[in-house]
């Protein structure tokens, strides 16, 4: 892999993230310093990484993340407002003009769960949308959700009910329901 030209993208990403062995890293660098094409490829990876950081920092995207990621956001100086909900719980929530993001920690019994879906339920009880295969931390029993901050800041008051569903083959099981009562700040 290291001796091939041009370097596979996966190898360059591994290099950027420090995943290569010391020997592979040294061999890659020897090749890289004589390879204009590899330089262009790696610049593409670095630009993409910078773009992702920017998209997170300026609140352009929503995402499911981890507790360590929330810590990294704080370390980067982002201002976060956090809520925590237990199954069956509800919360009055908002996002302030100075907040960079709102973090919702949705607690649930997730031990043994293989796939988790989330349905958005209307006030009339209808399913509005369903997100499949949501990332979660089974050990801490937590789904960490960050709705798109820019979009959230532009919204008027609303109530959002989420239903967490554990999926195993063709079987589904309710894990919990959670209600967010959002009001603009």
């Amino acid at each position, binding site marked *: 892999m290291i001796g091939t030209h041009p370097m596979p993208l996966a190898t360059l*990403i591994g290099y*950027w993230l420090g995943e290569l062995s010391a020997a592979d890293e040294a061999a890659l660098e020897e090749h890289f310093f004589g390879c204009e094409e590899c330089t262009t490829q790696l610049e593409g990876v*670095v630009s*993409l990484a*910078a773009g992702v950081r920017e998209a997170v920092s300026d609140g352009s995207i929503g995402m499911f993340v981890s507790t360590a990621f929330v810590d*990294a956001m704080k370390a980067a100086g982002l201002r976060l407002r956090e809520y925590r909900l237990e199954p069956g719980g509800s919360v009055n929530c908002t996002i302030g003009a100075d907040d960079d993001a709102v973090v919702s920690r949705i607690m649930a019994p997730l031990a043994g769960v293989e796939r988790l879906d989330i349905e958005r339920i209307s006030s009339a009880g209808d399913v509005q949308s369903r997100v499949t295969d949501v*990332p979660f*931390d089974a050990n801490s029993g937590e789904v960490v959700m960050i709705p798109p901050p820019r979009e959230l800041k532009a919204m008027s008051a609303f109530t959002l009910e989420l239903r967490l569903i554990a999926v195993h083959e063709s079987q589904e099981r309710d894990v919990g329901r959670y209600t967010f009562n959002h009001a603009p700040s």
Partner: protein
Amino acid sequence: MLDDQRLSALDDGALARRITEAGRAPDSAAESELYRRLAPRVRLYGLRHLRDRHGAADLVQSVLLMTLERLRAGRIREPERIGSFVLGSCRMTVLEMRRGTRRREALLETFGDVTATFESSEPGLLDGDRLARCLEALSERERSVVVLTFFADRNADDVGAELSISSGNVRVIRHRALSRLRACVDVGEGAP
């Protein structure tokens, strides 16, 4: 113009040899061309090892000015292997920067502020709105893996532990997501 075309056809080693042969009457066209080629490589090396944009910029100046000075003075034994020389200089300079023994001020004292002589543009930023739309188009798991990976440059082991999936699975999802992202962003860049 003809000279520019001839220079761009030369490989790095031939350019380095040409600078050495010019000696103390600098071949500024060859020096600029070599600087243009090597600066992005040194910058990327600096970003990878220092994780700091300003540190990487300092590394570019420090290593390449020293390299050109030595080429002019005929103090690089094998100009044909200029890439290896520059890599070795990068490694040593990063060590010195980490120890705090290399300062930008000291560099400027040695070489003067001649950096304006050479040009090397940094890679352009992606269209932020376009990238955000492309990120939103990924599946939740793909988007999570991408942001967890690149927001703080976390490796597959760390991301896998945070999402309760294997590092091998993270690599597969990451590779698929990046391929989709690049295709999506490239389409946007090609749009009128």
